[in-house]
């Protein structure tokens, strides 16, 4: 299975490189796929945030031709109505997902930079949304990457891998080494 990473308003090249490297154990091929995505309809001026569902709709409409999954990686602050923010969103059992690193940056909370921590958080959120694409729901295991995380502390608490039960489900999904730990 292939993964297409779509950088959108994303300037952190070292993070993109390292994240790609880390995700490569799960995919046959990872492509960095630059495609124009219209983010204007997703912008909410009152909240100064972007509606993640609308961004996903926009890329789905453009019907990109590459096979495999699509992961939009952005530094935009995302929301869905009702909630103050989201770290990402994915089509459950679909091909498209989005992850925002905006609130994964340590600077967002403490004004101190910590690239290693951001990389770990990004890996976890990317694999979490990909997990939803592959049919996984939130997992009760605190160690599992599919555990629901509503704040960075929870992201930091959970592990970097899928738990045994989730890995079992992923075995038939087409990704490589779902049981990697």
């Amino acid at each position: 299975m292939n993964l297409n990473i779509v950088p959108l308003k994303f300037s952190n090249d070292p993070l993109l490189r390292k994240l790609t490297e880390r995700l490569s154990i799960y995919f046959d091929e990872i492509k960095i796929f630059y495609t124009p995505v219209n983010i204007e309809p997703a912008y909410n001026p009152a909240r100064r945030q972007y509606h993640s569902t609308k961004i996903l709709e926009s890329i789905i409409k453009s019907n990109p031709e590459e096979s495999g999954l699509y992961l939009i990686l952005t530094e935009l602050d995302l929301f869905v109505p009702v909630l103050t923010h989201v770290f990402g969103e994915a089509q459950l059992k679909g091909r498209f997902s989005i992850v925002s690193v905006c609130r994964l940056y340590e600077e967002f909370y403490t004004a101190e930079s910590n690239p290693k921590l951001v990389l770990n958080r990004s890996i976890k959120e990317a694999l979490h949304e990909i997990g939803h694409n592959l049919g996984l729901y939130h997992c009760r295991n605190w160690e599992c990457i599919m555990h629901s995380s509503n704040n960075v502390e929870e992201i930091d608490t959970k592990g970097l891998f899928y738990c045994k039960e989730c890995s079992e489900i992923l075995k038939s999904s087409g990704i490589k080494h779902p049981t990697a730990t």
Partner: protein
Amino acid sequence: MKENRILIVDDEKIVRESLTHWFEEEGYVIESAENGNEALRIFSRGKFDLALLDMKMPGMTGLELLRKIKDIDENCIVILITAFASVPTAIQALKDGAYDYVTKPVDPDELNNIVRNALESRKLKIENVELKKQIDSFIIPENLVGESPQMRKIIDLIHTVAETDSTVMLRGESGTGKELVAKAIHQNSKRKYFPIITVNCGALSESLLESELFGHEKGAFTGAHFRRKGKFEIANGGTIFLDEIGSVSSKTQVELLRVIESKKFNRVGGNEMVESDFRIITATNEPLEKLIDDGKFRKDLYYRLNVITINIPPLRERIQDIPILANHFLKKYSELMNKGITDISKKALDQLLNYDWPGNVRELENTIERAIVIGKSDSIEPDDLHLKESNFTIDNGFSFSGDNGNSLEDMERKYILKVLNGNNWNISKSAEILEIERVTLYNKINKYGLRKIK
């Protein structure tokens, strides 16, 4: 695990979709509706564990919908969502049965926690109702087994007595199960949510019993390093079971009488008056009337304690319960000791039936337990029982066990039963051997409550 079902009601499609998607990722089963009427239609089709309602909707408001949902299913958790916080509306929502109230936009952490806690609390509430239902049903303690008319009468009495708060006196030989009956009365009474406290009056000296019953203050006597609550105080709200009441000293009898009448007492060495609300159940295997005649038991206390009497018959008077009890203990100890003994042989059962059981049910229980410990085959055999020879019925069907059950009626009952069992309950043949009319035999069978043991 059961999937929780959530109903989302909001007039904005985008909000419904966002919430649906958000909760689907959690593994919940979601349905959504754009207004109150549609929500009620969906609600009438199936049960929901939780409903998330927008407060402001065209037509039916969230508050109106909340009331209607609560009318249909009061166990459904309702959480209201509103665009702006309004304290009076929030209070009204909570008064009308809403679990909580969130303001848009809500922090995902907060929303997830509220929903998770609400579902957990709903689960506990339903479990609690189920458990209370179980407690509220009439409980017969596991060991109070038997189908004899005598036993049925006792169960009926327990039922009747449990509904009242009257003092009960249990009379019966040692090992008949007086404590079990006391527990059954307590467990079926309105006091069941409070403790039943047992005091064996015969096991304690006068001063120890007083301190045990009434408690003591620090320094009341040598060794009283701390203030200690007495059994009457601990039994507050519940029942106190005083076993072997006949052995209580004259001094303590006076104290007891005062406590029973006033429900107030002082701890030993104390001045503070302690109040306690308890029910008294007493038990004795002594002839209290004789003790009164001998001046060893106070008459006024006797009348206070003897409001309702339950006489528990000795096992030899309800021999049809022996196989039921024996099998009950067989199952209990066989499982407990992980032994594969599943049966009692015909010969062993005959021995159990012909034995006089001076130690009553307790002795039967110990006999079966011992038989299971030493038993080698998959059924209990006569050799495993080790019953005392002297307590066996002799050839002609009589038994002389010493103190009890040797009246003429006892002898007649035993002999008739022996003849009936010996002739496989053939009435004509048994009547012929007994040299009485068939109808007389029928009358005797009814009189003694005899039953054929299968």
